[in-house]
């Protein structure tokens, strides 16, 4: 690591480089951000984890979290900012990392920073007629609930700002040409994957390109976090990707514990790990059922939900909640586990194994299902890395990106399990990898459930949790991929800035990449195979 950072320092002589643990921070003037990005790309930083927009008071800036697909444990922060608040401009990095495209649109939407050279400077979550930039500190609420539909022209108006010899030039174009045949899909639609609005340009039955429209469930969580206390934020994290609620919550807990220098008791680590894996099983079962349902097989959905109820029962008994368990807290668990917990979990493991075989028999082997899934929707490894498609979908393309292996947190370091990998990146791979992951989750639970240490389940925290000043970052593996939390604290009881990295957002980027050329009838299935959760995207 040392050598990397010294190499970077030598290559970027205009940058301020600081090393702290596993993280290197590189600050550059914004005019040279692209140059720095190119140099880092050459150093092997091919994975842009997240881009965080920050309103620093007198500056507006960006923090990019970068990593290497070969060495994903290493994280590098690239920072650049501008002091211009009226007409803020920064350089776009969309040509270096595919994910930067959506992240920069998001920052434009929230902070009003225009990225020079970005091909598509549209708002991403909010409507085009939204007044102001909500995540700026000086934002004043002045938007009423609109009752008229958004105009298509507004949705399609693409703006690009370029810099030519110091002169700014603004070019406006339309997303789809006049001759293109565009079909709207959503936001209310029968597919089981939430209120995503897709606009697909068709060529006969084939898809030419798609344009996802987000924001139909943008709840403004990140802004809310800025006025909430840390224990309150946990509840918002639950409701981001509600199918991985426990894991998202886990991420925030781990982050706060790391910042406070707390160590949760061993028991809490064990139980959190078990619950995380149970949640993963529940989520994959739902994902499996919904994917089958999206392909027209309702039986599989009912089977999946039936098994999921078993997990919900365990949650309900121990945590008191079904979908929103609300069980992990900063410092450990909310309460002790139920006396039946171990028994119930141990009973669930053989049951689930048996059912897994049945699910394979029912659907995986079905010739119609195979016929639809095989050979469709290839996502290459290179695309997966550039677009940041993590989780089972990324692993189906052969990218080792499992945070449980990369940075074993909680009790993952103590158990023996396999990171399930496939290499083709086809729909069938993404489908089957989830079922295989259920098996691995069962293995993890099996090793832990009988060894849950006795004793305290939480350490005491101060009544008001205040994180020390600084920036904190935590990654966990949720059911859809890498879920990351970035918190900037100024020592108060509420954070200064919170950013959640949604693995689902990048999954939709994956959909955009694989959809062209496929049949329109397969679009829903492709989306289902990526298994995104829309409220997590919109936050």
């Amino acid at each position: 690591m040392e050598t990397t950072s010294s190499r970077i320092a030598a290559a970027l002589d205009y940058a301020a480089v600081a090393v702290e643990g596993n993280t290197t921070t590189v600050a550059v003037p914004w005019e040279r951000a692209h140059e720095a990005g190119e140099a880092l790309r050459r150093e092997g930083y091919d994975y842009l984890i997240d881009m965080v927009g920050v309103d620093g008071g007198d500056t507006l800036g960006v923090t990019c979290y970068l990593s290497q697909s070969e060495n994903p444990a290493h994280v590098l922060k690239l920072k650049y900012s501008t002091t211009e608040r009226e007409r803020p401009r920064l350089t776009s990095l969309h040509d270096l990392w595919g994910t930067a495209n959506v992240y920069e649109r998001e920052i434009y939407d929230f902070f009003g920073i225009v990225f020079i050279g970005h091909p598509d400077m549209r708002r991403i979550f909010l409507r085009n007629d939204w007044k102001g930039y909500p995540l700026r500190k000086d934002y004043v609420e002045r938007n009423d609930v609109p009752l008229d539909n958004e105009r298509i022209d507004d949705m399609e108006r693409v703006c690009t700002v370029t810099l030519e010899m110091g002169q700014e030039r603004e070019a406006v174009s339309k997303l789809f040409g006049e001759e293109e045949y565009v079909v709207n899909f959503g936001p209310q639609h029968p597919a089981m994957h939430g209120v995503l609005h897709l606009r697909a340009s068709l060529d006969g039955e084939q898809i030419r390109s798609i344009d996802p429209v987000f924001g139909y469930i943008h709840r403004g969580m990140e802004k809310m976090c800025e006025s909430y206390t840390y224990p309150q934020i946990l509840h918002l994290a639950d409701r981001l990707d509600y199918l991985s609620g426990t894991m998202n919550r886990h991420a925030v807990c781990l982050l706060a514990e790391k910042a406070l220098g707390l160590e949760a008791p061993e028991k809490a680590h064990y139980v959190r790990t078990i619950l995380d894996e149970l949640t993963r099983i529940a989520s994959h079962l739902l994902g499996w059922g919904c994917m089958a349902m999206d392909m027209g097989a309702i039986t599989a959905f009912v089977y999946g939900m039936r098994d999921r109820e078993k997990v919900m029962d365990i949650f309900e008994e121990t945590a008191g909640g079904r979908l929103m368990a609300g069980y992990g807290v900063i410092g450990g668990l909310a309460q002790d586990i139920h006396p039946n917990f171990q028994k119930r979990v141990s009973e669930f493991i053989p049951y689930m194994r048996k059912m897994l075989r049945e699910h394979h028999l029912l659907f995986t082997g079905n010739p119609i299902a195979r016929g639809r899934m095989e050979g469709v929707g290839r996502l290459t490894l290179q695309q997966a890395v550039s677009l940041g498609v993590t989780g089972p979908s990324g692993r189906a393309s052969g990218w080792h990106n499992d945070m449980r292996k990369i940075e074993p947190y909680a009790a993952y370091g103590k158990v023996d399990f396999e990171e399930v990998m496939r290499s083709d990146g086809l729909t069938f791979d993404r489908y089957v990898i989830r079922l295989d992951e259920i098996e691995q989750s069962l293995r993890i639970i099996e090793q832990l459930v009988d060894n849950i240490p006795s004793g305290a389940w939480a350490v005491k925290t101060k009544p008001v949790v205040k994180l020390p000043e600084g920036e904190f970052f935590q990654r966990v593996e949720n059911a859809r991929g890498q879920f990351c939390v970035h918190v900037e604290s100024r020592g108060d009881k509420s954070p200064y800035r919170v950013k959640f990295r949604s693995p689902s957002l990048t999954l939709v980027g994956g959909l955009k990449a694989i959809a062209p050329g496929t049949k329109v009838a397969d679009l829903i299935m492709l989306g289902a195979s990526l298994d995104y959760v829309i409220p997590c995207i919109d936050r």
Partner: protein
Amino acid sequence: MEVKNIRIKNIPHEEFKDNEYLEKYVAQLREGGVNVVVGALSDLINWGRSNSVWPLTFATSCCGIEFMCVGAARADFARFGWEVTRNSPRQADVLMVFGTIVHKMAPVLKRLYEQMAEPKYVMAVGSCAIGGGPFKSSYHVVKGVEEIIPVDVYVPGCPPRPDAILYGMLQLERKIKVQNFFRLPAGPHPDESSKTEGDGDNE
């Protein structure tokens, strides 16, 4: 006020809570000149209507997952005739709003409601749909769907359990049963229906 024969699958009237609401509703329907001692034909139609309520699936977030649970094997709303979830508002009887409604979604929701054929009902399920829920302080969240469309039944919870959602569904069935199909009230609530003298759409 006796509200008789409002049983759902042999669950007697007394087993339900919030009966005062229904009684008040019936009282006000009568005051407003609507005859609740409905004829045999209306009873027959209501029997059919209340036992085959087709919901429009409109799940935006977390609560939608519990809706899936209601539809799946354990809770199984097919027992009460709700299993035909429709994806087109034109075929649906009840708009079930699950989850948060945000500014960008509000016009879509309104339009969906307007596209539904009369008589139509709305259920607001979950704290978000009722009043913004945990996101009440957000800049982009509608503080309850009632700001946009009238609501018949509220099911609180974050998310409500499947049993609670089922209970809400049964309450709606009861409400349908006391109405006179030929003179449907205009508003969803007692006060509103008495004001408007119950001239709804009677097609």
